[in-house]
């Protein structure tokens, strides 16, 4: 979906077109689900947050301007919802709030490595490594400076490499 097509769909959806709204949701829901799943490894929670994100996007659509991609907007909403979720369940430490998989879990290694990171650093890593966002976009999504994103991302990569080397050695 090009920016122009998306912009047109966004404008029409804001004007009340359900078809265009449906189209935007269909295009972006899977991305939000994947983003949350990579952060939490929890299918149920990812579904809940992705649905809530889509609903909030629609409810607040008239307040939004088309400046960034819809996916960026929805990822920002999803990230904030996840933060709220963790705040409500603060009895569980942030970096340990990941369900433990069984021996047949194909995501076990990625899960082990990612769970070493704090949730905000994990978000940066997932956005950069898996979703290909640049530092500026990540900064906008997380509401922090581009320089902070860069330094935290490099710290995350270093920590993961170190962890992997230890795992191999």
């Amino acid at each position, binding site marked *: 979906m090009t920016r122009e097509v998306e912009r047109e769909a966004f404008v029409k959806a804001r004007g009340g077109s*359900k078809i265009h*709204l*449906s189209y935007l*949701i*269909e295009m972006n*829901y*899977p991305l939000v*689900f*994947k983003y949350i*799943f*990579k952060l939490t*490894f929890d*299918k149920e929670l990812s*579904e809940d947050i*992705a*649905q809530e994100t*889509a*609903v909030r996007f*629609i*409810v607040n659509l008239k307040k939004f301007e088309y400046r960034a991609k819809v996916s960026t907007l929805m990822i920002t909403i999803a990230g904030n919802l996840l933060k709220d979720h963790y705040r409500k369940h603060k009895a569980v430490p942030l970096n340990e709030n990941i369900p433990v998989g069984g021996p047949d879990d*194909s*995501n076990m*290694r*990625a899960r082990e*490595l990612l769970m070493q990171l704090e949730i905000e650093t994990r978000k940066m890593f997932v956005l950069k*490594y*898996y979703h290909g966002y640049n530092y500026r976009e990540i900064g906008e999504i997380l509401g922090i400076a581009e320089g902070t994103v860069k330094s935290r991302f490099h710290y995350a990569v270093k920590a*993961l*490499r170190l962890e*992997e080397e230890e795992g191999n050695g």
Partner: protein
Amino acid sequence: MDDRMKIDIPDIEFDPALILAEAERRIEKKRKRDQVIFLLVAMMTGVMMLTGLLMCREYFILAQAALMLVVSPVVLLMTFVRRTAKGGTSHG
């Protein structure tokens, strides 16, 4: 790191129609809540205006004209000014 960092995503099932329906329900709920808030504010303003009218009955014509143009905070201010102008204090 690439291969081992690969994450298998479970199948995604969702129905945009259900999401749209839920969003519409919330929009309607918000609209109703806004209506109630508007009614409450209107009632409060009405009560304040009525109070202002009663308090300013000595200057009824002036008060009525002012109240038609401005809302309750101005009436309260006028009342305060009138009381202090007569030599009283805001504490009565």
